[in-house]
């Protein structure tokens, strides 16, 4: 091993490596690598990842919020009265198609080709001419309006047309609530405090948990039980099956012992039979559910829960009633809590006979809960248009076909509006907040949502409610997934000064020598050029 350096090598080192030329080349090459590769790589790797999104489509969807809902109407008349049909159709056309201001345009069409197919989701108006004193209308479960007229004079038909207009606009289609629903989502209508109906309606969600709880505050005195599996099969399943395309329901039940409400009912003497009874006022009721809420365990399910609570009144308070706002005793002894559920006070009539364990009568609590569930889902109970209009009872299914169609329309417009609004918010936030990450799977969801919205809008325009609902639901789920995806929040916000604080200790020690040596290199190059020029001149 020689410790001495080869003299040739040494000269090479001293002459070549220390020569100005080598140094210049080295400086330039390092500079080129830093600026051509280093900085772009750093830039690329620290960049917030954003997959491309259909911003133009989203903004055009948002700009043009209008929805067209087509409602086919079919007028059927007795065989020899075709002219009556024409007169009524013309009158209805005039009455129905005066548009309300809002994002939804209702298109009542009278010449639908599909009217005879199974897919028909519109309204059938059937006319009967009979010698009755007054005109009458009967709304069947399937949405057929059967009108009975005393005569076929133009005056009568005009009156009938107005009546049908009110019936269709206010109940069967319920234009106002649909407008409110959409306006509320876009925040275009000012918050309408008078519209108490919409506050009660739960927000769209593909899945709901229906939790039935039986509360026995003093099981040592009086205990109760139920057979919820059978009860729900008997009273609830037909209704839930009917709603299966809209929501996925899971029914749960529980019996809770020693779960009492701290309340002090007021005592009053009955005028008629001089018996004492106790009652609660709506003001008292507004605080009643808070103490038991935690015990219900409604948070076990990861889906929104609707609570239905049967509270077995304590023996010392039995019978206990609740009063309505105008002071009457509630018939169902139950009250509705908007978007939460319903609660009923259950009085056991004859404790001594029940032998300690009473079976709660499902008919009593279901009679209270079913109307409340209907309200929570967005339906009206006991709609009233006029004396002349009678609605057929929906039977054990508790939802008529026309009500189901109405729910389809309501939830479709809600889904569409909500997903457009979500996508718009997302694109707006992406512009506003620079550190939101968009991964490829999110972009896919967004594209899916946009596509489904367009399909749903098309189907709604054609009056095809089932398809519209299917696509709108898809769009709704996709847009929700995209917005609430955990990966959107990978990076927290870094203020500019913090970025400097991080990068300066790293970049300054590297960049200073490079910049200085680059400067020398350039100077040398220029000098060299200058020298050569000088040389040429002297030559």
């Amino acid at each position, binding site marked *: 091993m020689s410790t001495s350096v080869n003299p040739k090598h040494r000269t090479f080192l001293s002459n070549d490596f220390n020569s100005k030329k*080598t140094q210049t*080349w*080295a400086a330039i*090459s*390092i500079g080129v*690598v830093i600026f051509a590769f*280093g*900085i772009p*790589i*750093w830039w690329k*790797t*620290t960049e917030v*990842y954003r997959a491309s999104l259909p911003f133009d489509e989203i903004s055009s969807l948002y700009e043009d919020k209008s929805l067209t809902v087509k409602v086919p109407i079919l007028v059927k008349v007795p065989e020899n009265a075709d002219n009556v049909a024409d007169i009524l159709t013309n009158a209805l056309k005039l009455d129905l198609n005066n548009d309300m201001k809002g994002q939804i345009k209702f298109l009542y069409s009278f010449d639908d080709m599909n009217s005879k197919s199974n897919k028909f989701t519109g309204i059938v108006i059937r006319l009967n001419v009979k010698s009755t004193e007054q005109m009458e209308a009967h709304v069947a479960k399937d949405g057929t309006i059967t009108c009975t007229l005393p005569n076929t004079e133009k005056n009568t038909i005009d009156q009938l047309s107005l009546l049908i207009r009110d019936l269709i606009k206010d109940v069967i289609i319920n234009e106002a609530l649909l407008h409110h629903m959409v306006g*509320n989502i876009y925040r275009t209508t000012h*918050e309408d*405090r008078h519209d108490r109906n919409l*506050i*009660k309606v739960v927000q769209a969600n593909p899945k709901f948990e229906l939790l039935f709880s039986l509360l026995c505050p003093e099981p040592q005195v009086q205990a109760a039980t139920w057979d919820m599996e*059978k009860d729900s099969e*008997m*009273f609830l*399943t037909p209704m839930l099956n009917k709603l299966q395309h809209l929501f996925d329901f899971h029914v749960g039940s529980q019996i809770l012992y020693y779960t009492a409400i701290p309340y002090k009912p007021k005592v009053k003497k009955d005028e008629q039979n001089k018996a004492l009874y106790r009652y609660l006022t*709506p003001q008292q*009721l*507004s*605080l009643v559910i*808070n103490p038991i*809420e935690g015990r219900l365990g409604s*948070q076990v*399910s*990861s889906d*929104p829960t609707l609570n239905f609570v049967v509270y077995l009144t304590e023996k010392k308070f039995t019978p206990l009633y609740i009063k*309505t*706002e105008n002071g009457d005793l509630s*018939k*169902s002894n139950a*009250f509705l809590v*908007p*978007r*939460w559920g319903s609660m009923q006070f259950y009085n056991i009539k004859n404790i001594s006979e029940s032998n300690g364990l009473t079976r709660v009568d*499902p*008919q009593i609590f279901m*009679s209270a809960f*079913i*109307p409340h569930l209907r309200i929570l889902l967005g339906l009206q*109970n006991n709609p009233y248009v006029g004396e002349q209009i009678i609605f057929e009872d929906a039977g*054990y299914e*508790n939802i008529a076909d026309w009500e189901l169609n109405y729910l389809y329309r309501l939830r479709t417009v809600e889904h569409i509006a909500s997903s457009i*609004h979500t996508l718009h*918010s997302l694109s707006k936030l992406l512009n506003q*907040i620079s550190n939101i990450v968009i*991964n490829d799977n999110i972009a896919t969801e967004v594209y899916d949502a946009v596509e489904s919205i367009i399909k749903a809008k098309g189907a709604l325009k054609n009056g095809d409610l089932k398809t519209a609902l299917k696509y709108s639901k898809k769009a709704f789920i996709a847009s929700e997934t995209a*917005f*609430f995806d*955990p990966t959107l*929040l*990978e990076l*927290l*916000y870094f*203020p500019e000064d913090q970025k400097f604080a991080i990068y300066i200790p790293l970049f300054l020690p590297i960049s200073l020598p490079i910049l200085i040596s680059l400067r020398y290199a350039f100077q040398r190059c220029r000098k060299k050029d200058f020298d050569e020029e000088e040389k040429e001149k002297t030559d």
Partner: protein
Amino acid sequence: MHINITPLAFLLYIISTSHASLAKNTKVTQEVNKHFSGSSHTNNWAVLVCTSRFWFNYRHVANALSVYRSVKRLGIPDSQIILMLADDMACNPRNPRPGKVYNNKDQAIDVYGSDVEVDYRGYEVTAENFIRVLTGRLPADAPRSKRLSTDDRSNILVYMTGHGGEDFLKFQDAEEISNVELADAFEQMWQRRRYHELLFIIDTCQAVSMFKRFYSPNIMAIASSQVGEDSLSHHVDPAIGVYIIDRYTYHLLEFLERVSPGSKETMEQLFKVCPKHQCISTPGFSTHLFSRPISRTLISDFFGSVRDVDVTDWSFTAKPNPEVVDTNKRTKASGNESANRRYSYSQQFVTKDSTSDRLGTVENTPHPLVGIASSIFLCLMVATVMKTLIS
């Protein structure tokens, strides 16, 4: 004794009549409020965050628990309170009164109480988790108790306490949340209709700086101190050896203790809590984003849960499905029916393999240092190549 009865009765009479007229008045104002400025929310939520750890920050835990106690007492159920508490002072070995956290040295109020449900504890209390809770971007397997499942009719109270500075609040000495981040989180909530109205209260140094960047509607904010001011603690408890509670929250709790569920106190009164001579710092307020007048905004709109119930009813009789046989008759007929019933318990834990979307997992984005390291590496490589080429 005998003499006293008449004036007493008279006094009682006066009290009862005045009470009656008062009740009448409140009923009228209640009606009026309902029509003009009543909040149209249907549910109340609270997010209470203590961002400090360690024994010497006992007071911050006491702060958060004070508000927790109040909102719970005033009616917000535990399922609607997200409590983020970094350290468990009640069970700390240094606590001479195990299982208890008091609001003052006289042990007046045990703010820990008998039933505390902490949703995020220990190292789960991070700025990221807090933002995730607010914006709803939690992993799919997060239980519902850790979620802020609010909607467009929810009123939310957000209370924060800890060590802060101008424009930021520290989380456990490890990270911080800036006011921009917080404002953006609230904006995302508003955009996605996750709140109806929001009350933001913060007890920290330079607290006002935390809400000055807010830009989303319907937010009211209260802070314990101005920019440039420190927020001070109330007093030392010799038994625990550290400060026991902060001034602002001490007086806030004192005020809230006098409020009863469903009472009619307004925000205006809350704004008067802890004036400068009590707080030493100057509490700051922001109402310009809030749409209702504060004199008509009830404290129970945020601190309680007064539900708007509906007792209107219909004579409706549920009709049984004719296809199903009545159980009563059936059980009488065959007693063994109950043996073959299909009961199932509701699913409590999502069993899906969720290791990939845990909190805090960073995918796809390389660390910034990777870029720098790779560029330095490239430089060295090229320099070596150049060197060999030249030689």
